[in-house]
């Protein structure tokens, strides 16, 4: 318990730090005297902070849920085609209905993300459970194929740059009025927490969960929907953020086991913290210029992932 209180305090402290980093110099004291300072917080800094926190927390939760659905620890939405699927949806909307509303874009992106995630589940189910890395490998190539399809269509229609801007994961474009749909992802994550016990049972496998009286198909469908929605919303709002959904669930599972009702809050907290740290680093590294947070996460995440792969196993996998 003490540890999680400490975690919340650390996250709050980082959040405050995040609010006062930026090109426009802002000191805490100014909040009391200067109305423009409050304006800055309300329009830019606070929305950005919320976007970062929601993205991190919901992606980490979605990663956990996906890992339960596939029963494999080495997958996450951004590596098995969900993220690329969402990008495909954005591309299709842009081509067919350039004037579509943001909501229509999100609906389309969610639908394509759902289809591609479902496609991956169908393939993954046929892979032998004895080879855990195979699922991850196939997922990466599957995502790569969808990504190549996106690149092909984008190239032919001269939309490569637009897609590049959409999928590069960064938060610099987040302003009041341009991120609020992300709260839907937060709601999806909360609903996952409500259904946490079901997912824990689902993780035991098809036969075991049916024996325990679980409505297997329904829970599976709900998980799939939640994962697709979170992926689509993050890609539409901030772009592809790698590794959060992969690394956080693994670390928490190692520390606390797989009782999702207990672990999901910790997972959400750590996910939010990880992306927040990456975002702060991305902003400070070459101040006043910004790096994409996704790039910072790509470096840190890859190193942690390789460590996860090669750490001495305590149990045989």
């Amino acid at each position: 318990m003490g540890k999680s209180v400490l975690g919340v305090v650390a996250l709050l402290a980082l959040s405050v730090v995040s609010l006062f980093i930026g090109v426009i110099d802002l000191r805490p004291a100014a909040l009391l005297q200067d109305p423009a300072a409050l304006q800055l917080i309300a329009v830019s800094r606070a929305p950005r902070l919320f976007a970062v926190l929601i993205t991190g927390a919901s992606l980490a939760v979605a990663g956990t849920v996906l890992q339960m659905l596939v029963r494999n620890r080495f997958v996450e939405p951004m590596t098995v085609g969900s993220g690329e699927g969402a990008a495909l949806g954005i591309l299709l909307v842009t081509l067919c209905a350039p004037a579509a509303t943001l909501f229509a874009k999100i609906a389309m992106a969610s639908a394509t993300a759902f289809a591609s995630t479902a496609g991956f589940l169908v393939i993954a189910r046929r892979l032998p459970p004895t080879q855990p890395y195979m699922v991850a490998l196939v997922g990466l190539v599957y995502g790569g194929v969808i990504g190549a399809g996106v690149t092909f269509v984008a190239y032919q229609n001269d939309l490569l740059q637009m897609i590049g801007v959409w999928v590069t994961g960064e938060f610099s474009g987040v302003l009041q009025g341009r991120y609020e749909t992300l709260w839907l992802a937060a709601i999806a994550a909360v609903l996952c927490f409500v259904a946490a016990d079901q997912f824990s049972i689902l993780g035991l496998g098809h036969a075991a969960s049916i024996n325990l009286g679980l409505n297997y198909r329904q829970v599976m469908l709900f998980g799939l929907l939640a994962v697709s929605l979170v992926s689509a919303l993050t890609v539409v709002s901030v772009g592809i953020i790698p590794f959060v959904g992969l690394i956080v669930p693994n670390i928490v599972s190692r520390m606390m086991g797989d009782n999702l009702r207990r672990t999901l809050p910790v997972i959400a907290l750590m996910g939010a913290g990880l992306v927040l740290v990456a975002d702060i680093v991305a902003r400070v590294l070459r101040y006043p210029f910004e790096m994409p947070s996704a790039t910072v996460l790509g470096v840190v995440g890859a190193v942690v992932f390789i460590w996860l792969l090669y750490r001495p196993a305590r149990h045989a996998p």
Partner: protein
Amino acid sequence: MHRRRLILLAVLFVASAVAYMTIGARGNWGFVLEFRGAKLVALCLVAVALSTSTVLFQTITQNRILTPSIMGFDELFVLIVAMGVFVFGMTDELVVTSWVQFVVSLVLMTGASLLLFGTLFLQERPDLMRMILTGLVLTVLFRSLRTLLVRMLDPNEFSVVQVSSYARFHQIETGLLAIAAGTIGAALIGAWAMRHRLDVLSLGREAAINLGEDVRSGTLQVLFLIGVLVSVATALVGPTAFLGLLVVSIAHVVTPTGRHAVLLVSAALISGTTLVGGQALLERVFGLVTPLTVVIDLAGGVLFLVLVMKGLKR
């Protein structure tokens, strides 16, 4: 063995080369031939380098679904180029055409790949899937590191690195052709000289040791050749993810054999036909702007998934 098929492949290759040189050509033939000839030579060099490096790689890993690209070899090369620009700075001339820079990158690349992948492959009991996954994550790592470095550069240097990080077959750096031809040629001679040892190495660690092969030195020599081939190909056209996998898989179907004397030749011919013919089709017939690599990535990725699924059924 397979002689008629090899001859057929050679005919196909020559036909696609002729198509590449002639389709849609207008005006001064002397100019057209010289201009397209240089590109054709570059395409052929890349094609052979990619097919040979993939065959070699599949031999030492004993796996038909691997290519050096999947393991991040070419991204490593681009990262090294980016690091060169970052550390020494280079604004006046293109990195990829300066041969000093090229040779330095080549040496660094082969060194790094020997260190990194040597330690991976020479484990007592290599876990194949874990190794591939490592390669894929390394690819992400190299790419992210490069992006980070690139963002630290000033815009001139930025564009230099940017040019070398995209696969491009329609505009090839022909300035490097002579040195590229020399290094690829030397590496190919090395691979050809090893062809019988490769046959033995492909049988697996235990069998190879029993047959009197020094697996350790063999693997390192092969890795060295792969490093050289991938560097030159990447310097010429940029990273190519699935081309090697695609052409070598086709080679295994057309000329099913364990003999590298046949396999190396057939893979090279198929690779040349795919690249030159594909480029001729895409560029001159269909007029598509999408680079051939994207199409090949799509086709190669799907093929990879099919191979995995088929392998499971067996």
